[in-house]
């Protein structure tokens, strides 16, 4: 019957190509598919974080002084150091991909991956220190004993900042002291939500690195097959990019209101 079609016999080529999955014709197609797949995943990650950035955008627009006050309370140097740590981890990740792509020995590949993981864990350690500091200062926004009570110099600085830089509309919002504290609490929940979600992605990233480390040590990756290293790299760089935006938006937004800048 005339319903037969021209066809290719594909059963010859498949076997013994390391890592090739059955639905793909060849390793080339598999690498294209997995790379594009990771990019589409990153697109949805951008939109995921995007919702939080939208909330940040709106409330910073509405309450710039409260946000500045909260931001100035963050430890600038820890944030700065963390940014450099993450950038370094991106470098070591890129070098891990390079080492796989150029068929370096498994131990070399593993070395770059381990370095990436170390940087990642340093980042998380610093975040833990920061979070603990907030806890000590009663600045966890979800808990009942959140207290925004700057004293002495801090209070003076805050009032000066509002006096000099707030618009009339905003000043009228802060009629009661409590109202200001509420808005600062808004800043802190956004801070925790954004850095928390980011930290969660870091934790997942380190888990992924562990898997990558294990498979790299088994000698899985070389110039013929390095796709998984590449796509894990893409994920890691994305997490770095999110922090590149978080650092100035959360830590630096109010520094220029304070004479001389610097930490709290």
């Amino acid at each position, binding site marked *: 019957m*005339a319903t*037969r*079609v*021209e066809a*290719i*016999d*594909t059963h010859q*080529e498949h076997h013994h190509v390391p890592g090739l999955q059955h639905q793909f*014709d*060849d390793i*080339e*197609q598999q*690498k*294209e598919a997995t*790379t*594009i797949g990771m*990019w589409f995943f*990153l*697109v949805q990650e*951008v*939109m995921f974080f*995007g*919702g939080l*950035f*939208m909330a940040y*955008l*709106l409330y910073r*627009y*509405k309450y710039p002084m409260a946000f500045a006050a909260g931001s100035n309370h963050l430890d600038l140097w820890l944030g*700065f150091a963390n*940014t*450099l740590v993450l*950038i*370094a981890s*991106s*470098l070591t990740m*890129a*070098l891990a991909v*390079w080492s796989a*792509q*150029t068929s370096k020995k498994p131990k070399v590949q593993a070395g770059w991956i381990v370095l990436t993981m170390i940087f990642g864990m340093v980042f998380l350690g610093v975040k833990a220190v920061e979070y603990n500091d907030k806890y000590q200062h009663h600045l966890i926004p979800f808990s009942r004993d959140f207290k925004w009570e700057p004293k002495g110099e801090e209070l003076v600085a805050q009032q000066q900042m509002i006096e000099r*830089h707030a618009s009339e509309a905003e000043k009228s919002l802060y009629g009661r002291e409590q109202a200001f504290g509420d808005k600062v609490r808004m800043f802190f929940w956004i801070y925790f939500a954004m850095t928390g979600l980011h930290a969660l992605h870091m934790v997942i990233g380190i888990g992924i690195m562990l898997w990558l480390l294990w498979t790299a040590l088994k000698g899985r990756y070389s110039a013929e097959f390095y796709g998984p290293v590449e796509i894990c*790299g*893409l994920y890691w*760089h*994305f997490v*770095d*990019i999110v922090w*590149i*935006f978080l*650092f*100035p*938006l959360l830590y*630096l*937004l109010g*520094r*220029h*209101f304070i004479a*001389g*800048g610097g930490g709290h």
Partner: protein
Amino acid sequence: MGQQGLVAEKSINHGDEAHYHGEDHHVMSIPTYLIIFGILVVGTILTWFVAQFDLDEFFIGANTLVALLIAAFKTTCVVLYFMHVRYSGKLVWLCAFGAIIWLLILFAFTMSDYLTRGAVPGTYR
């Protein structure tokens, strides 16, 4: 029925339009990576530095704009070089641009509400 009834043996040609061509397997060089790393570190220091000065005398929000521009520049470096987009096919570029555009749609259209509230006299503020 012509060719339709025949069964032909043919090797799969990945050059035709049925397959998407991604990367050219361009191998980056270590010096390039180190230079980009250097640029990123300098960019971070620059961000901190500029944040010390009050640029509001130029216009409100100038500090934020500068900070975002530097962050965007750093992101571009990471995307183009660390993530190899510079040497990738059109679809990857489309993904990167698409993500940015969609984010901007969310921000722009939502803020268009908040920025224009009360603009018409007598309406809800």
